[in-house]
């Protein structure tokens, strides 16, 4: 892990005590790494500190202990190399689609003239299929389109890593699906290093090379790192046919339903080392949990994490 492109090392976040209360340590001893070109998802229950972790990674918040090392250097604040796609798009409502993307591009390339900025923005607006909506204001766009602008804005600065905090959670299932597909193809084409928080197990299986499981707070830890055993090039339509799909899905679901909460007991296990959380590869070396062409979806709703 010490060679990873991005290393989260012993990260801790404690919020100071509110008047009369006690300080809460949201998470502690969080260690994991993100390799170059890798897509990492973080799954955990509401309130375990996922957003806090992502904000520290983005440089928007400060850790209370431990640190984050990118390319061998400890981060000290926000950087154009770490682009953020916000949960609620965070578009500037007085700017057009083009204006929002251009705002980011001008921040990256302050020397570019207008024509060059526009051409560069156009490329990314086209990439997220918003051609023709360049001059619209965010209030004239649907939720999915707004999130696409957010994606275009983040990608247009060609960041080293893309950070996403539940970017699709506010969208309906159909829109979410098509945006996931687009993200898959964009990340595959550009080998974009990405880190994404999600509540959606299927989203994690579709997108992630590696899924980091976080236990419930306070004092949340990384319980386990799950390697995605489904082959690359999987799609939303066919991934459930793969023999590793149900082992993966059941493993993640089992974690969210039972283990995330009872993890405190696993913590005392002398085999657990927070610096090297166990790595599992569900489905590998096991018989398929279900027939390959299992009809329908008898499993309970995957999004158990929401309150």
């Amino acid at each position, binding site marked *: 892990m010490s060679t990873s492109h991005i290393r989260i090392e012993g990260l801790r976040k404690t919020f100071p005590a509110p008047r009369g209360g006690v300080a809460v340590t949201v998470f502690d001893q969080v260690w994991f790494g993100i390799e170059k070109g890798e897509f990492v998802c973080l799954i955990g229950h509401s309130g375990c500190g996922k957003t806090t972790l992502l904000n520290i990674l983005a440089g928007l918040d400060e850790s209370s202990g431990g640190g984050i090392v990118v390319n061998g250097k400890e981060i000290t604040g*926000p950087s*154009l190399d770490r682009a953020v796609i916000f949960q609620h798009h*965070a578009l*500037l*409502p007085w700017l057009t689609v083009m204006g929002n993307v251009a705002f980011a591009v001008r921040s*990256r390339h302050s020397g570019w003239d207008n024509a060059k900025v526009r051409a560069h923005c156009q490329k990314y607006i086209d990439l997220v299929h918003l051609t023709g909506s360049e001059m619209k*204001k965010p209030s004239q766009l649907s939720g999915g389109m707004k999130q696409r602008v957010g994606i275009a804005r983040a990608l247009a600065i060609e960041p080293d890593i893309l950070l996403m905090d539940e970017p699709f959670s506010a969208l309906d299932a159909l829109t979410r699906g098509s945006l996931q597909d687009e993200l898959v193809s964009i990340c595959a084409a550009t080998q974009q290093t990405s880190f994404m928080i999600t509540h959606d197990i299927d989203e994690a299986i579709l997108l992630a090379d590696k899924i980091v499981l976080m236990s419930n707070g306070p004092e949340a830890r990384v319980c386990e790192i799950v390697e995605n055993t489904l082959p690359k090039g999987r799609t939303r339509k066919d991934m459930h046919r793969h023999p590793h799909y149900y082992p993966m899905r059941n493993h993640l679901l089992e974690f969210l339903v039972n283990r995330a909460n009872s993890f405190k007991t696993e913590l005392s296990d002398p085999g657990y080392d927070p610096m090297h959380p166990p790595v599992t590869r569900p489905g590998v070396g096991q018989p398929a949990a279900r027939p390959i062409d299992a009809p329908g979806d008898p499993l309970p709703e995957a999004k158990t994490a929401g309150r």
Partner: protein
Amino acid sequence: MQLPLGLRAGLLSVVLFIAFIAIWQAAVSGTGKVADIDPEYAKLMGASAVTGASAMPGPGDIGVTLWQHLSDPFYDNGPNDKGIGLQLGYSILRVLAGFGLAVVTAIPLGFLIGMSPLVYKALDPYIQILKPISPLAWMPLALYTIKDSGLSAIFVIFICSVWPMLLNTAFGVASVRKEWLNVARTLEVGQLRTAIAVILPAAAPTIMTGVRISIGIAWLVIVAAEMLVGGTGIGYFVWNEWNNLSITNVIIAILAIGVIGMVLDQALGWLARLVAYQE
């Protein structure tokens, strides 16, 4: 078929106007010869005593005088006889001067206050004490220190229009969505560019609300201020015509004050729509 709402409202406005004029006319016109009085005495007392007509001018009188004013608004026959347009011009200039000074003071200062919770807290007690003071209460102090009645009036306009803009700017700047600031931070946008490209447009609608309230107050206060300092301006005109017992001119001045106030407010309303955005 139903006429569009705008047209129906317009028609209703016209009907109300006609009704108002009719009632006004009826209220001021005489009931005929009320009493047999000595013609010599009647001559002395004027028509109103004989016919019962009110001394209050009717809409016709106002119309005639208004036409006279409108056909020559800018004449100047010495200190006590200037056209109403000229007087309004003086007032508008004073308001714009005081208000302009307030804009260039309040908006930058409000920006600083809004950006810094420390400055906000430190200045808050002063603002809370200064804000509720009637601007006219400053007048003697202004006359004493500035020693010029025209400038004192401008100062009073300044002091009354500064607070709404200061408070609205500070509030607007302090309540810019954290999300938007975070966007700027993750893009490594410098402080100055964040202030100009994010905070200013985000706070602009709130600032404009303050600006609009300010010009409204300034226009209210200028009439009173000019009554006090005298010399020129529509406030002085009203006072002067009252001393001349010309109710007609007073009514016309009231009308003019209303119209100019509306124009000022509409102009700023138009500006406010330019900077408005929909979330």
